[in-house]
């Protein structure tokens, strides 16, 4: 039951930030562009140099090998990037067929050529790419940014199921206040490098 804890985390103009996300909890962050939301997620994933530390349960980021940490505390970037020709090359094993279906993708998607995928298809596939590694904490940077309303709901639903089943801690950056109402148990505004908790909206689950 992994919980994510940030202690005095500081990266460039963001922080110091203290935050606890319980196992199975979803916390949303919003804020103006340039406020450092992406920077914060990158620092938690240890892709950028930072002060302070992050813990997954009692495992400290700086004491784990960086790849191991990033496997357990997985960042899904706003834009998806691919290095191979076909979708399947980017997955270590199979793709969970029911997840594909849930996101409105056919099973044959594993053989698709990436150059022919739409931005929205790639975004969903990138999410699955990360989920297939079964991370204990998820750092999501606008995971539905390029999706229509119906597909957005599908993604929200899949992520909620994953979170409950895996008891994963989820940190979700979103611009959409409706989405924040739907998915978050707690919501924060990132401004001037600090997190301010806001009135809780509707509970999800």
């Amino acid at each position: 039951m992994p919980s994510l804890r940030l202690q005095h985390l500081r990266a460039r103009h963001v922080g110091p930030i203290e935050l606890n996300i319980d196992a199975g909890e979803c916390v949303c962050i919003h804020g103006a562009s340039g406020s450092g939301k992406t920077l914060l997620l990158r620092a938690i994933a240890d892709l950028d140099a930072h002060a302070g530390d992050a813990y997954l349960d009692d495992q400290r980021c700086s004491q784990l090998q960086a790849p191991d940490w990033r496997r357990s505390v997985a960042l899904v970037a706003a834009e998806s990037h691919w290095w191979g020709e076909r979708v399947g090359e980017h997955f270590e094993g199979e793709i969970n067929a029911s997840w594909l279906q849930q996101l409105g993708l056919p099973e044959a998607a594993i053989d698709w050529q990436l150059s022919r995928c739409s931005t929205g298809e790639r975004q969903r596939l990138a999410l699955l790419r990360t989920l297939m590694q079964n991370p204990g904490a998820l750092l999501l940077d606008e995971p539905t940014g390029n999706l229509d309303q119906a597909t957005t709901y599908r993604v929200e639903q899949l992520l909620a199921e994953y979170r409950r089943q895996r008891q994963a801690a989820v940190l979700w950056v979103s611009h959409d206040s409706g989405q924040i109402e739907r998915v978050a148990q707690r919501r924060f505004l990132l401004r001037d490098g600090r997190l301010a908790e806001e009135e809780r909206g509707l509970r999800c689950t």
Partner: protein
Amino acid sequence: MHVINLSPLDLAIAALLILALAGLSLRLRLGVERQLLTSAARSTIQLLLIGLVLKVLFDNVHLAWVALMAGVMILVAGREVMVRQKRRFIGWWGFGVGTLSMFISSFTVTVMALLLVIGTSPWYAPQYAIPLLGMILGNTMNGISLGLDRLTQDAAQKRPIIESRLALGQSWQQSISDSRREAIRVGLIPIINAMSAAGIVSLPGMMTGQILAGTPPVEAVKYQILVMFLIAGGTGFGTVVAVGLAARRLFDERQRLRLDRLSQPGK
């Protein structure tokens, strides 16, 4: 066989070509006459000087002098590798990566050739050691600077992809593997091309020189083959080492991509 000595007059006749070309450039407003003349003058002076240096070196065969000469050559080559990079590493790494890998590959290959293949006595006989090292170094320098340039450019360009791979928990080696492979390949292409074209499209300069100096063609060819192989070995291993070191330097101890360790292009 005897070498026909060239008199200063002979060289002056050849220099007329340069002057004529400069005149043409002036006439056609190509604007390269000044560069042409200065580079011609530079090469004359540099070559005359190195001729004198080599003469002294050959007259005073001593390991220390040979080592000093080799050291100067490698430092100059290291600087050349550095200035050819669009994005070079900041600080000592910019000079160090290329120089260290040239030192490892060119020196090893040259010493190996002197000791095991040619078997000169003493093994550091400057007549063999300096030209061999020069040829290997010159080519290795090309391979390394091409490879390094490709690697750093590629990493800067593919930053989002590399970071996606890191975010998926891949090691730095995996994340940069495509760029690294490509960079090594690019560094090796010139010598592979030179080997396949040798003798058909081009007569390599060294062999031509030997033949002009009166060496029987088949002997000259054997030396040329030896030199080609040495160059390929030096370039290949040098590029692999340089690109490997540089790739390592692009990541820090937490396996983060550190493009801030490179200078901006054009600065």
